[in-house]
């Protein structure tokens, strides 16, 4: 289906539009665009967190919810599963995608590395929103060492 391509184009335009408004990109301006993108992802994540889980109460533990993110959520949004999930068993999880669909069309290697973070803000928000609606407060950051592989770090906030 054309759904995947449509989402990719929409996402590219969202990033371009929010970046363009700050013709004077001081660090303050950049942060605001990223947080707007992250906020959008957050609201979408909340809606997906409500719609995607199946009929049964399947989440017995925190790690079940993370597995749901890696499998069901990723498949619904990006038509593939997350490639690896690691944890330090103390509330930090690292989700790694070896060929992230939103980055795969840009480059494969080190070209455009500085541009990559703004294309990950929406997805960080998406993860944070889904976790929030399933009952986990978290902080999600992303890092890219070489396109199109990227890592999302989820730190659970223990209150």
């Amino acid at each position, binding site marked *: 289906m054309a759904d995947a391509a449509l989402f990719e184009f929409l996402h590219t335009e969202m990033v371009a539009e929010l970046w363009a408004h700050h013709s004077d990109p001081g660090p303050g301006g950049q942060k605001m665009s990223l947080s707007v993108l992250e906020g959008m992802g957050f*609201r979408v994540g*909340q*809606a997906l*967190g*409500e*719609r995607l*889980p199946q*009929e*049964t*109460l*399947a*989440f*017995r533990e925190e790690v079940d919810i993370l597995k749901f993110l890696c499998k069901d959520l990723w498949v619904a949004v990006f038509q593939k599963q997350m490639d690896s999930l690691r944890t330090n068993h103390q509330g930090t999880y690292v989700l790694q995608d070896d060929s992230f669909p939103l980055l795969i069309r840009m480059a494969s290697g080190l070209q455009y590395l500085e541009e990559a973070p703004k294309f990950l803000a929406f997805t960080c928000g998406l993860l944070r929103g889904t976790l929030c*609606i*399933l*009952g986990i407060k978290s902080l999600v950051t992303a890092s890219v060492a070489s396109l199109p592989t990227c890592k999302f770090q989820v730190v659970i906030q223990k209150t």
Partner: protein
Amino acid sequence: MAVCVAVIAKENYPLYIRSIPTENELKFHYMVHTSLDVVDEKISAMGKALVDQRELYLGLLYPTEDYKVYGYVTNSKVKFVMVVDSSNTALRDNEIRSMFRKLHNSYTDVMCNPFYNPGDRIQSRAFDSMVTSMMIQVC
């Protein structure tokens, strides 16, 4: 046919509560409030059970002499509570389940509405009309 329908947020405040117009609606609000304890008890009991299939439908929470109260919880810990008239020819379990399923689907639609902020009271007319279709005609 339900006499009162309530949607309760994860933090245990009502997102939506509606009952058939009677002279003492407060008693329904009170019933829903007291049923929350039973819901919490059922959820924590389920958490300890090692059964693989933990259901969203909680079943009959408690019966009173005039009414029966049923509960349902979603994966996002939002609870639906329904009060039904006992004198009504006993509604089958399946019918209650299907009413809850409709409620869940409508709630999911409300969540996906970009004009709705999670945590606000539900003001969607579509949700209202779905609940109306589940409640008894009084007049």
